[in-house]
């Protein structure tokens, strides 16, 4: 994988480089304009919209200072998002890996049924059950509660599928050897198999955390008081047809990307390795 030192500059290499530099610009350009805009005063934004021009005289930290004022709401949203993301990701990984491992490693009656159902849930747009799920949340008294956001989707089909594929490729010899040594079935899972599935865990952790951090429709439905909102929902409440909150919205949006960017840059190697090694063989 590691790129060899560029000794020869063939035409193909130069053309490919130009193509991918162009694509990288396309990928980063909108984010760069967003960062620039976050340092512009509000009137500038309302008058000219989003663009690349930055006048050094107009540079201001005001927008960032303002998001921390906002009656402290932005910080609360940030805290809520972090809390929900951590709880959701941890629970989701534990449960989904157990289920995926269970259907990969054991032969039992419900095995095929469960696997088919996992595929069915993947295929059915969850939006169709939003209304009954919403009524269910009301009767379970989980409305406006972080557990209402987390519980319905914590055992997710995609990670189950992924862990099943990954566990299926693990050597079974460990299993029998550990049983002979007197290890319980759960001991085998927690002490032997879980460490072996570490690459799958890291890639699914990023995927689930990202999904939770950016989740929109379901938290929009469940959470309804301002101090309980997550960042995406909170930011969307700043979106008014008159556009008078743009400067706050932009600074808030920039600040919300920072944690995911850091996590991704640190873990991207594991993430990509896990994807490559694991379930996406189809």
């Amino acid at each position: 994988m590691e790129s060899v030192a560029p000794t020869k500059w063939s035409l193909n290499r130069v053309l490919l480089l130009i193509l991918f530099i162009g694509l990288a610009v396309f990928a980063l350009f909108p984010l760069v304009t967003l960062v620039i805009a976050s340092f512009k005063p509000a009137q500038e934004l309302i008058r000219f919209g989003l663009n690349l021009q930055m006048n050094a005289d107009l540079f201001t930290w005001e927008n960032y200072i303002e998001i921390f004022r906002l009656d402290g709401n932005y910080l609360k949203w940030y805290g809520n998002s972090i809390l929900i993301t951590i709880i959701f990701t941890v629970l989701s990984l534990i449960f989904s890996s157990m289920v995926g491992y269970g259907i990969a490693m054991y032969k039992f009656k419900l095995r095929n049924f469960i696997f088919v159902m996992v595929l069915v849930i993947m295929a059915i747009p969850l939006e169709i059950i939003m209304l009954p799920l919403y009524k269910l949340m009301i009767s379970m008294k989980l409305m406006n509660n972080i557990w209402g956001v987390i519980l319905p989707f914590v055992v997710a089909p995609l990670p189950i599928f992924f862990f099943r594929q990954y566990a299926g490729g693990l050597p079974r010899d460990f299993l029998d050897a550990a049983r002979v040594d007197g290890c319980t079935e759960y001991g085998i899972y927690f002490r032997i198999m879980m460490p072996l599935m570490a690459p799958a865990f890291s890639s699914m952790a990023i995927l689930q955390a990202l999904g939770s951090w950016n989740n929109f429709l379901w938290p929009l439905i469940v959470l309804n008081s301002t101090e309980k909102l997550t960042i995406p929902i909170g930011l969307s409440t700043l979106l008014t047809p008159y556009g008078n909150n743009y400067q706050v919205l932009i600074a808030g949006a920039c600040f919300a990307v920072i944690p995911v960017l850091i996590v991704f840059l640190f873990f991207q190697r594991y993430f990509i390795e896990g994807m490559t090694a694991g379930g996406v063989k189809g």
Partner: protein
Amino acid sequence: MESKAPIVKVNNKEPRSKFSKILYSQTIAPYVFVLPFIITFAVFFVYPVFSAFSMSFQEIVPGESKFVGLDNYQEIWNPMFKKAVMNSAIYTVLTLALLIPIPLVLAVLLNSKVMILKDMFRATLFIPALTSVVVAGTIFRMAFGELEGSLMNSIVTSLGFEKQKWLGDQWLGMMTLLILACWRWIGVNLLYFLAGLQNIPKELYESASIDGATTWKQFTNITMPMLKPITIYVFTISIYGGLAMFTESFVLWSGNRSPKDIGLTIVGYLYRTGWEQFNLGLGAAVGVALLGITLIVTIIQLTFFGMFRKES
């Protein structure tokens, strides 16, 4: 590894109780592993799906609900719903047409021997997927704003064209949605295809080039067939994603309110009827209709790929 057994013994003084013996047996263990799925599946999936069906035959007003037969289904057969279905269908087809071939070719190019800085480009192209739809939508909403100074208008006016109301026109609006989709998803699909490419044995290419196969021949005869499983996977999740698209249009047109409903999608219509008009029965009917559409598309897709499988 040995510590587990003594702990159990400390807990129950006699030899393991009957219950824990059963719990630790090899026949019960798999059920314990899948228990979280069984519980959440029953409570948060099976029950709501049945409930969605039954709600769709009812008129639900706070406090009471009555059976109205197929009335809700008759009612959703209106121009607004048809518009929503059309928008979702066009969006799905066009995203498939863009977001499968482009990332596939890019993955092959990025994977080629002459390419350098692979890891850097792979990570950079993935970065847009890290942003939430709300952040991405906000950027695009402003960049495609109707103001003269907005990014897109300053580009087209400098090229000598008239400024446009990007989000006020059916096709320009759809184009904006598609550019947004490409921006966010090219890096993700590229990663899937790259993962698929790593699983193709190198010897296949080596023996092919010894036999004198051109690069193009290698691409069509080795790469494409070997990438079929991952392509089917990407194709499938793209269909589901396309048909269920909502947040993008919600953010681009600040809260589901696009002029002449040019950005209304099926889920957008579900949201409008269910939450904005609080007509739960009608919303449930829209949901069931979406399920029907998805099932039809899935069946078509399965037969299509199934035929492919017999060939090989």
